[in-house]
């Protein structure tokens, strides 16, 4: 009788032990999950923000050649006259953009246009930033040529 009681007791102790283990595992799992999702949520929000900026920039009628709405056909003359202040008024602060024609290194100013292929907007020396890039077309107003470039949009952390 006593042995049977002891066996019962052992069984309950074992069961309680496993239940406690399961609760501990669940707590650890939920904590880990929370930490993981917070990190990925941050990354997701950053990507959504970057995607929004990229789409706004590449589809903006202020920068695109007339008649092209999808995919980005940035006009070089519009890019050259544009400055950071104009863009900040459009999409806010804390970000930067760069448009670079493939194989080009000369940064565009009003003096060297159109013999240039890099446009930089709102770039600072802050080394902490997150950036994404997509291919776009660049329309050369003078030669009526269409080239491929890379639009990089990022924001400072």
């Amino acid at each position, binding site marked *: 009788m006593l042995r049977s009681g002891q*066996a019962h007791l052992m069984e309950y102790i074992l069961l309680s032990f496993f239940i406690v283990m399961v609760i501990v595992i669940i707590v650890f799992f939920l904590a880990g999950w929370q930490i993981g999702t917070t990190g990925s949520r941050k990354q997701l929000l950053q990507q959504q923000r970057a*995607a929004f900026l990229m*789409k706004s920039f590449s589809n903006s009628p202020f920068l695109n050649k007339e008649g092209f709405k999808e995919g980005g056909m940035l006009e070089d003359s519009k890019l050259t006259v544009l400055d950071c202040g104009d863009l900040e008024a459009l999409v806010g602060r804390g970000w930067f953009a760069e448009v670079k024609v493939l194989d080009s290194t000369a940064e565009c100013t009003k003096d060297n246009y159109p013999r240039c292929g890099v446009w930089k907007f709102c770039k600072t020396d802050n080394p902490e930033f997150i950036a994404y890039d*997509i*291919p776009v*077309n660049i329309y050369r107003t003078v030669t009526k040529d*269409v*080239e*491929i470039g*890379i639009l990089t949009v990022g924001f400072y952390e």
Partner: protein
Amino acid sequence: MNKIQGQTSLVMIVLMIVIFIGIGIFLLITSFTTEETEYYNLYAHNLLVSVMRAKTGYRSPCDTVADTVYCAMTGLGKQCRYLRDDTVKKDCGEVSDEITPQLIRKVLATKPSLDYYMIMQPEDPEYRGGETITYGNPDVQNKGKTWTANERILQYQTNLQVTLILAPI
């Protein structure tokens, strides 16, 4: 009887643990893939559109890459003159084979972790026997994780369906 009850409880506990771990892994995988997919889909689409609109450096009918591909598929034997030197003439197919992969490779040089495969075919499967033009690495199609962009080249005789598939190397 009690022994069976104890075993059943143990099995239930183990099952619960397995289910929790399974749900966790599933949620983690789906959350990561959705984020990546959105950006790379945009990238693939922009790459395809940019390449198709780019000028080739040749005269009509090879003005843009899209024109050249269309000419290569429909205009048998048509030739294009080089803009900077009128004496240089090449077949549309030759220009397409030279310019299209070169432009894609140039853009993807900024993303060395990506590989590509491009397929161009007439929308009408009976047009010229449904002949296709392809560039890049065909193995990309069989990779697990891919991002695909589709575009149509609208032309008089037949529209072309252009597909660009990107995948990590």
